[in-house]
């Protein structure tokens, strides 16, 4: 089994390392390929079971787009062939049509048609409950970005609290075949063990026994319990 993380030096912000920890502990026999920025992605030439990308700075988003643009076709093929891909945090923003920041536009990978509108100072923070086919996903949004023109993007789920693509758009993330992109921080795989177990089993077509499942589930249940009783889901607008 092979799992590839793209540009780990530049896409490990906001606790994403926890996602890698969960994968490494769950698949101790797997080969983890950590592909440096501007190297040839392993998945473009070899079979890779799961490709992951984590959160990054806004400048790094531009570098990632430059790097991955020549591999757009390979990314599309991966999606079409039902191969696993996880885009955590703000990495999903580079999959869209454009990133607009301070009147500057950066063309994205354009695999989807949404626009990313980035604030330069304002940060949007929320606890998000997201209803998905895998059940209720919990996580935090801490983002400069609001997404528009998302109508044609297959969403990952619908928020039941917090906000989604936009303050006025309850849909969140991308779920296209076995590509899942989700802006929630957590880290996603550690915070949502039920999702992680189901998704990995689906992608790998075998029953996956998740590492640390008991402890992660206790943490999820406690968070869910608070989620159902707290008063504020959006902290700053």
């Amino acid at each position, binding site marked *: 089994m092979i799992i590839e993380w793209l540009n780990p*030096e*530049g896409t490990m*912000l*906001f*606790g*994403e*390392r*926890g996602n890698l*920890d*969960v994968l490494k*502990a769950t698949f101790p026999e797997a080969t983890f390929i950590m592909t*440096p*920025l*501007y190297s040839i992605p392993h998945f473009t030439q070899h079979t890779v079971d799961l490709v992951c990308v984590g959160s990054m*700075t*806004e*400048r*790094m988003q531009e*570098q990632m787009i430059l790097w991955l643009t020549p591999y757009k076709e390979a990314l599309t093929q991966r999606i079409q062939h039902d191969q696993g891909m996880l885009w955590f945090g703000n990495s999903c923003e580079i999959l869209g049509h454009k990133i607009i920041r301070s009147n500057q536009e950066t063309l994205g990978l354009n695999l989807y048609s949404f626009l990313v509108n980035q604030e*330069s*100072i304002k*940060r949007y*923070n929320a*606890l998000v409950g997201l209803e998905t086919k895998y059940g209720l996903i919990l996580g*935090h949004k*801490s983002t*400069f970005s609001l997404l528009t023109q998302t109508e044609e993007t297959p969403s990952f789920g619908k928020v039941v609290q917090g906000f989604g693509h936009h303050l006025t758009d309850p849909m969140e993330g991308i779920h296209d075949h076995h590509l899942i992109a989700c802006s929630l*921080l*957590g*880290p996603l795989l*550690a915070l949502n063990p039920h999702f992680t177990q189901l998704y990995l089993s689906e992608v790998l077509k075998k029953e996956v026994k998740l590492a*640390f499942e008991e*402890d*992660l589930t*206790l*943490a999820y*249940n*406690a*968070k869910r319990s*608070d*989620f159902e*009783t*707290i*008063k*504020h889901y959006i*902290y*700053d607008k």
Partner: protein
Amino acid sequence: MKQTLRFFIALWASKSIILLMRLLKRNATHFPGDVALKIDPNFLSHVSRPSHVIMITGTNGKTSVTNMILDVFAQDKIAVIHNALGSNILQGITSSMIEGTTLTNKSKHEWAILEVDERSSRLMMPYLKPDYVIVNNLFRDSYRRNAHVEFIIGILQNSIPETAHVIVNGDDMFATQVIQQRKHTIFSLQPISDEVTRQDSRIHDGQLCPQCFHPMTFTFVRYHHLSHYYCPQCGNTNRNSDVVAMLSSIKSKQLHLNVHNQTYVVDREVPSVNDAYNTAAVFALFTAMGSDLALRSKQLSSIKVVSSRFSEMMVKNKRIVGLLAKDQNPVANSRLCDFLSTQPHWGRLGLCFMNEVHAHEDHPHEVENMAYLYDTDFEYLNESKITQFMLGGHRRYEFRARLVMAGCDPQAMVMVEKEDDEIDKIDLSQVDTIVLMYSTKNIFEGIALREKLIKRIQKEVL
């Protein structure tokens, strides 16, 4: 800028509030500023500016650096406007300025020495126009407020006036980015012969060159991105330091500071690398100001660094240590984990985690983002000498999960509903040292729990 009637109403109203709060024995370090800003949102552009303004910012060490500078000014018997007792965000700075200004808007003192939150600096620096700005370091901090280091660099680059003289840590590839075209003084700390460096941290934001994104080369890494670095592609490297700090050994009680081939000695205990950096930052400020450095080194030698971040006491045969474990800050917590793992004489450790922001509220209004736990080096706590992990509060299971993932012994973890209960449940027969790790929001609760622990030890330990 022209002073308006609105400004004077704001000034007089907030001064009245300070007076009233004093009579009520309340802390007047935030609310008066809040009121003034509500009346006149441009208050800081109207208030009288002292002749000289020094601002201290950066992720870690701001308070210590500020206190050291204030101490030196106190030795010189120079009264200053400061916010040592108040907050370092807009309302706190505004309160300090109100305090330091007369009813007719004349500055009471020639100097203002202000600790400034880096995220909020854009709301203050353009108006108060500091002459000197110290940027001690820039690390990951709250994901919610500070996002990432590049975001904070951008804020500082845009907020620090072009006329300001910046004093920056030359070992920090991010802090030095705020220099741009400004006058600057750079300080650094030479590698120490017996220093144990950390190159295995989960966070190392400088792996790719911030200028060209090529992998950096390192000849020395102190911790995280504090390093001697070189980019083989664009040549980005440490700038030459104006003030080079040196410790002959990590336990040395003399900090040598080399300035223009002249060596000055600060002759007092510098209990950590961080203290050495903080002292070097202060010395660099005085170098930039053209001070008598021989005198300054003597003054810095006489300072007793009082820290709310570290306390240590013995009660019977048990050591009680209080440590500030900044909530939401993975680097500060990683440094703390490193510190705990490298204390050779503390015996068996019991760690009381009490740094959850909302732990002392029965029904929190928010659910805290604990993602920072996954950037924190809890792996350093995977040691047999840590015999108890006391975990309480709303997020205790997230702490537990992360500690288990870090390889810590689940059998050593004691789960209690509230942080307050940790003290009752700790098994005193299994520990020689109890470490209370409180957050910036829970300092007073931490002190109360320490008192509770003292009483328990006095009662139960023979």
